[in-house]
């Protein structure tokens, strides 16, 4: 509850802070203070020390899983703000508006990680989406940004319509929006429930950009300003996944055998399309867009398996994926040239940046001793324990091998190619924060239980 209320309030403070103070540093400081307050209050709520109580009539339920997930999101947001406040100023003249919109998105993520009725699921997904349409188009004079924004908006509102139709059919079949009261999974599958589940699956696959509903992703991620691409590809994507997992775990978990094959097909298609298309990209930004589709394929395993490993795995995956991707995007935003050639010889001119970028890329590829290895391991072991469709696990391992190719292309460009990579001046503070993120990725890669044990407090 703390996250939902305080992020909405802080969004308003950010918005009017831009009116009251004209100093350029005010929104930055306000944003970092705000995210720290959200992180601390969320952790306090986790330890039952300080929690705002509102009677929500059982519409929201705050579980350790949701609170740990919120903490991971907020920690990644803290890294994100510390690393990219300078890039906010480059996008437009009024950065405090962007901060305000981002805080509103966090409010939506708070709803998505704790909903217990379909109404709150709908509101959470919409509160996440609507500010993002604006953020994607925030570079108003740039046609690519316009395209990204319009495409995202049309696809997003389309998928909202599909999701609502699914909710309406479920309501027709069960007579309630409450997930606990729905009591699905007894007796044979009614046609209206089947239609509802399939439509909800399509809509949520749109939101998390799983194939075959991924086609908007590369254009939107490529066209949006880099600093907002970083936000969309990490925080928002894992927010969508936690809603996906909660819905399919709590509401449709008992009838898993009915829809598991469909999820398996979506997972396989996402892994295949994301990884294979990423190999052929020339721009690192576009490659990261496809890589985010590929990583979504691995996160789909959580919904496929629906067991303890899947839940722990999703928590671990969100942390590993968010921190590493935010780090790579922060370095990318400093580069002049976004193609692979732009990274040539980075190791000579900026050895520290190149090393940290390498650790993040290795983590995304899932090399041992980085957080990415254990997160992929948990996902796959969850699918093995589940026992159905073992071919999917083999396929995922093969695809992880393919993914190593395009991640190593960046590393090869940085270390083994001649050239002078042009980098905008980086401050010592920037490098220190990146170093903290790097250490975190390595620590999580050695002791993943630090994070997963939190679920059983």
């Amino acid at each position, binding site marked *: 509850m703390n996250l939902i209320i305080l992020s909405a309030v802080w969004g308003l403070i950010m918005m009017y802070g831009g009116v009251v103070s004209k100093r350029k540093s005010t929104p930055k400081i306000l944003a970092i203070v705000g995210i720290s307050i959200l992180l601390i209050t969320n952790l306090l709520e986790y330890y039952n020390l300080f929690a705002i109580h509102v009677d929500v009539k059982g519409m929201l339920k705050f579980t350790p899983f949701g609170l740990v997930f919120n903490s991971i999101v907020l920690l990644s947001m803290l890294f994100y703000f510390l690393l990219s406040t300078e890039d906010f100023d480059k996008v437009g003249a009024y950065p405090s508006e962007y901060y305000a919109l981002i805080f509103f998105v966090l409010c939506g993520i708070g709803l998505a990680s704790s909903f217990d009725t379909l*109404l709150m699921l*709908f*509101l959470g997904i*919409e509160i996440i989406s*609507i500010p993002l*349409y*604006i953020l994607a*188009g925030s570079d*108003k*004079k740039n*046609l*690519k940004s*316009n*395209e990204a*924004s*319009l*495409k995202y*908006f*049309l696809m997003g*509102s*389309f998928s*909202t*319509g*599909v999701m*609502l*139709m699914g*909710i*309406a*059919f479920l*309501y*027709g079949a069960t*007579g*309630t*929006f409450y997930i606990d009261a729905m009591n699905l999974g007894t007796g044979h599958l009614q046609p209206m429930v089947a239609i509802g589940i399939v439509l909800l699956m399509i809509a949520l696959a749109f939101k998390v950009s799983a194939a075959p509903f991924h086609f908007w992703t590369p*254009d939107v991620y490529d066209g949006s300003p880099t600093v907002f691409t970083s936000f969309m590809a990490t925080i928002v994507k894992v927010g969508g996944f936690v809603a996906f997992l909660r819905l399919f775990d709590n509401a449709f978990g008992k009838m898993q055998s009915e829809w598991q094959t469909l999820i398996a097909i979506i997972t396989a298609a996402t892994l295949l399309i994301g990884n294979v298309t990423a190999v052929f990209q020339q721009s690192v930004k576009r490659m990261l867009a496809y890589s985010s589709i590929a990583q979504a394929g691995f996160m789909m395993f959580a919904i496929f398996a629906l067991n303890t490993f899947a839940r722990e795995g999703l928590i671990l995956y969100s942390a590993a994926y968010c921190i590493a991707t935010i780090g790579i995007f922060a370095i990318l935003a400093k580069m002049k040239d976004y193609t692979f050639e732009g990274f040539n010889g980075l190791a000579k001119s900026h050895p520290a940046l190149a090393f940290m970028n390498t650790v993040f890329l290795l983590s995304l590829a899932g090399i041992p001793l980085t957080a990415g290895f254990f997160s992929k391991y948990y996902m796959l072991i969850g699918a093995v324990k589940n026992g159905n469709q073992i071919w999917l696990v083999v396929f995922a391992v093969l695809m992880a091998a393919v993914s190593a190719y395009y991640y190593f292309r960046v590393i090869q460009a940085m270390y083994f190619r001649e050239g002078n990579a042009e980098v905008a001046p980086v401050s010592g503070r920037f490098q220190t924060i990146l170093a903290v993120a790097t250490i975190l990725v390595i620590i999580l890669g050695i002791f993943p239980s630090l994070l997963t044990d939190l679920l059983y407090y």
Partner: protein
Amino acid sequence: MSINNYIFLASALFSIGVIGVLTRRNAIIIFMCVELMLNAVNLLLVAFSKMHYLTASVIDHTTKAGTDGQIFVFFIMVVAAAEVSVGLAIIVMMYRNIHSVDVNFLNRLKH
């Protein structure tokens, strides 16, 4: 009237909306089709709400079953209004830059 008629009408409206989104190239018309989809859902929710009320009121005359469906419709209306305000602003922004609302124009920018 049977509930099947309402389901049929709402599904038809929804399908018209989906087909419109997939085939039309004018951003405003696509947007109208999305609104049509949302309104088909509203119609269906109200019909289901009445259906659940009627089935429950046979047993208990003072039942409140079905009210949540109608409340959901209000939430959809509010969210749709928010989406309209953002969406039209995006379309106007695009029109200012390229003096057209044709979606095909944007695809030419792909590299």
